[in-house]
Structure formats: structure tokens, C-alpha cells
């Protein structure tokens, strides 16, 4: 089942001189874990904004083409109409709290309150998500007292609890320290295991290699590469666009270049270990 569909989408921001998206064609099916990579300004966030309907409903500007989310025409639905179709987690940990709740528990339940869910149902769902994401120790703290990493975990919980069809996560760790990043990626790992449809924008290419099944590479508003993670992340085209590969891919390609053939170019630590094994001489 196709969850996200963009047909020949082009877009320019009201105060932008150049187009942020150029002739985008994209289809994402239910259950896929798609990573979007590219340099700053390549259009990754604009793509996410378009899928969720922020473009054009919030950002206005000029848009051509068609966008469908779970079969709904995004251009004809409001941002609120699509609340349960796609959840969105933003980069900035500090701008996603409602600012009206005294406890993290209620903060997580805020979205469910907004859609008018029954009170006991809300409480049960929030309990479940807190236990699943292992943030019990944060449950009764004030949302304002949390660190960046803690806030992002709460933001993820707040969106996941609404059980949207698609989860759009836009560079969630760019403003976090290493510990915060680790905590967030633990949750993303769980999302993958739950079989959720995820669109993840990230710069940390090594982490993407661990999770993504499919990778979309963008540059200057266009989709340059779109395919299985292994193919995209080891493609020489990335180098042409000055985009770094995962470090294990760099290792693998360098080994091959220097005359150490490998079955395939590794992109994760596990694959790298397997690939290098034949070349490790153990003392007999």
C-alpha cells in the first residue's frame, strides 16, 4: 500500500530566489524505513514539509505537482486534517513542547487530548508508550526542566503515541550531545522493529547505514539517487556530489582499491567485520 506519493512536485518559498524542490517524484510504501540524505540546502526538510502539508499551507509559496498522503490530496487538506496521517518530529528540541502542561505524562498525551480521545484510553496509551520507550523516570517531571535529549525523546513519544500512518523525523539529533543522540537512536531502532513507516532525515550517515532499508539522496532540490541503502550509500555518485559515505564503505572501497577484493562493500560495523575476516591472520 502506498502511503506517500509525490508527482512532479516543484516548489519555491515566498522569500526564496531558487526553487527548493524540482520535479520530485517519490513513492513510499507502508512499513518502509526511508532515510533522506544530502547537504544543507538540498531540499530534505522541504521534502518533509511538503509530505506533511506544511508546504504550501503554512509556508505558502508556489507549488506545482501533486502530493498524496494515505490517499488524501495534501493540497486540498489542512494541516490539522492530516494529524493522524503523518506525525512530524522537528530538529529543535525546545520548540515542540505545548507549553501548557505541568508533567511529561500530560505533555505526551496532549495530541490525543486534541483529537478528543476518551480520557482512560489516553492514559492507557501514554502509559504504554512511556514503558515501551523506557522514559518512566521522566513521567512526572516538568517538561520545561528537561534537557535537549530528554525533550526529543518526549517529542518522539508524543508523536508515536498518536499512531500516525507515517512518521517524519527531521534531523532529530542535530542539536543534541552524543548521549542525547544515542538515546534518540535507541527509539528509532524500536520504531524500525515495530514496522512503522518512517522517513528520517539525517546527516549521521553511519547511523543511517544501520537502520535504513532505502535511501534517497538529494541535491539542490532534486532527487539524485533513490534505492536500497547498500546501493545508494556505496555509489560513486555520492563522491561526485561531495557527500561522505559511511566510514565502513570508505574502508571497504579503499581495501578493494588496494587489491584486497571483498564480496561486497560493507556499510555497517557487522558487515565490515565479516568482510575483513578473511584477511585477518590468526596465530596458529
Amino acid at each position, binding site marked *: 500500500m502506498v502511503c506517500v506519493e509525490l508527482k512532479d512536485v516543484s516548489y519555491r518559498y515566498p522569500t526564496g530566489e531558487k526553487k527548493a524542490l524540482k520535479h520530485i517524484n517519490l513513492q513510499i510504501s507502508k512499513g518502509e524505513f526511508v532515510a533522506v540524505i544530502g547537504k544543507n540546502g538540498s531540499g530534505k526538510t522541504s521534502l518533509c514539509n511538503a509530505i*506533511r502539508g*506544511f508546504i504550501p499551507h*503554512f509556508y505558502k509559496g508556489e507549488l506545482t505537482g501533486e502530493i498524496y498522503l494515505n490517499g488524501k490530496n495534501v493540497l486540498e487538506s*489542512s*494541516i*490539522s486534517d492530516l*494529524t493522524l496521517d503523518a*506525525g*512530524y518530529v*522537528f530538529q*529543535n528540541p*525546545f*520548540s*515542540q513542547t*505545548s*507549553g*501548557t502542561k*505541568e508533567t511529561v*505524562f*500530560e505533555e505526551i*498525551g*496532549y*495530541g*490525543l*487530548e*486534541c*483529537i*478528543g*480521545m*476518551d*480520557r*482512560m484510553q*489516553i*492514559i*492507557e496509551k*501514554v*502509559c504504554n508508550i*512511556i*514503558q515501551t520507550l523506557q522514559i*518512566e523516570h521522566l*513521567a512526572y517531571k516538568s517538561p*520545561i526542566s528537561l534537557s535537549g535529549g530528554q525533550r526529543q525523546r518526549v517529542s518522539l513519544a*508524543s*508523536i508515536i503515541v*498518536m499512531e500516525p500512518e507515517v512518521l517524519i523525523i527531521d534531523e532529530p539529533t542535530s542539536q543534541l550531545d552524543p548521549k542525547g543522540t544515542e538515546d534518540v537512536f535507541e527509539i528509532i531502532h524500536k520504531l524500525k522493529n515495530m514496522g512503522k513507516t518512517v522517513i528520517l532525515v539525517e546527516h549521521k550517515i553511519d547511523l543511517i547505514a544501520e537502520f535504513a532499508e532505502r535511501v534517497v539522496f538529494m541535491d539542490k532540490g532534486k532527487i539524485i539517487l533513490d534505492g536500497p541503502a547498500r546501493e545508494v550509500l556505496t555509489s560513486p555518485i555520492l563522491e561526485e556530489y561531495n557527500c561522505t559515505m559511511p566510514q565502513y564503505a570508505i574502508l571497504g572501497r579503499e581495501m578493494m582499491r588496494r587489491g584486497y577484493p571483498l564480496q561486497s562493500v560493507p556499510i555497517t560495523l557487522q558487515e565490515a567485520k565479516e568482510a575483513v575476516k578473511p584477511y585477518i591472520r590468526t596465530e596458529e
Partner: protein
Amino acid sequence: MESAQEIAARFAAKKGNPVLDLYPASKLMFVLCMLVASICSPHWCFGFIVFIVCGILTAFAGELKGFLKGMRIILILFVGLLTVVRAFFYTGDNLHYFLQLGSFHMSWEGVAVGLGMGSIVLSVTSPLLMTTKTATVEDIVIALEHMGLSPTASFLVLSTFQMVPELNARSAVIQDSQKSRSIEVEGNLLVRAKAFFPMITPLVLSSFASTEEKSVALESRGFNYKCSKTRIRVITDTPAQKRGRILMGILTGIFCVVGGYFKWFA
């Protein structure tokens, strides 16, 4: 972690104190009744009676210290100073003077007028302060929602109450960083005035930047989703309190008619 039932109970829990647990509408009704009654009261002691009653109720709730602290300045200004000023400057015929200061005389009638005005101020500020000390903003907003307050309005109130201390804290940080960049804060008026702008501008601009993302984030969580909203936190009104409020209204009405007659017509 507790079970869902236990958590549900936690978010509906009463504090066990009759004053703190009063449904906010009852407290607001009290404020309104005292306002109206004090205007129609023929004697200025009404305000002081209200003040004492509110003091007792607040003490019962364990908030007497805060209440008295807030009332102190009101007593000084609107009972003390106001009475003295009115006593001196009140003009009229057949006044009974008792004190002379320079060319000004204090009259008993002036004192009575001053105390009368002070009484009205006391009658409204005491219940208001009692309400703010013994009820949380959230509970007051929930009670207003039951009476028909829109979700947007309740968001505005709650968010504002959380935002003010947050921004104050941020401004303290900016103040320190500006001082360390040698922006002068001591010296003559012009120097200090010039320091104001670079202290407030970063705060305003960063607030604007936050607003953009915040508004998109809120909307994407269903802020404008068309349905009636529910809430995890609940407060309950009791039939006894409902009857109490009606009774309060009726008694206030009777007091106003009788008191007003004596005040303005007898």
C-alpha cells in the same frame, strides 16, 4: 510504573483541604458577589470583614503568608494612604474637622469616604488574592472550559503563564552575557538607557524564531483538529457547591437591595 487506573486517579486527585479543593467557579462567584455587595454596602467595615474572612479561608489552606504579603501593600496604599488623602482633600458643607496641617484640614466625613473606597478595593482584592493563592491556573482554566471557554483561549492563558517565568530566566542569561561583553549598565541615565535595547532585542528575535516552529508543531499535533477536546486532568464540581453558589447569588442580591436602600435612599 503505576497502573493506568492509579494514574487516572492521580490526575483527578483532591488535595484533601476543603479550601484548596473548592471548585474554582465557586471562588470566582465569591469574588463577583463581594464586588457587587461592597458597592451597595452602607458601611465601610464590609471590606474589612471580607478581608478577615478571606484571611481565615487562606490560612485554612495553608497559604496565609503569601496572602498577607500580597495584601500588605494594598492595605498600606488603599486603606492607609487613600483614607488620609481623601480625608485631607474632601470638600463639602458642614464638615467636622479634627486635624490641621498647614492650610489643610482632615475631616471625619473625608475619612469615611476614604474608608468607603478602601472597603470596595479590599472586598475585591481579598477574594481575588485568595483565589490565586488557593487555586492553580490550570484548574481555573479547566473550570472556565466547563463554562464554555474555547480551546484556543485556554491555550493562550496556560501558555502565557508558563512562558513568563521561562522568558525571564532567558533574559537573565542574556543580561549576564551582555554584561560580560562590556555593555555598560552602571552610570548615568543615558548609559543605562542605551543598555536596554541590546538586552531586549535578542530575546524578541529569538522568540519570533521559536514561534514559527512552535505554531507548526502545535498544528501538526492536532491543535485545530475539529472536535471537542478531552483532558487528562479533571476537576469536579459538586451538587452542594452548585447549590451554594446559587444561594450566594441570592443572598448577595438581597444584601444589595437592602444595603443599597440604606446607602442611597435612607
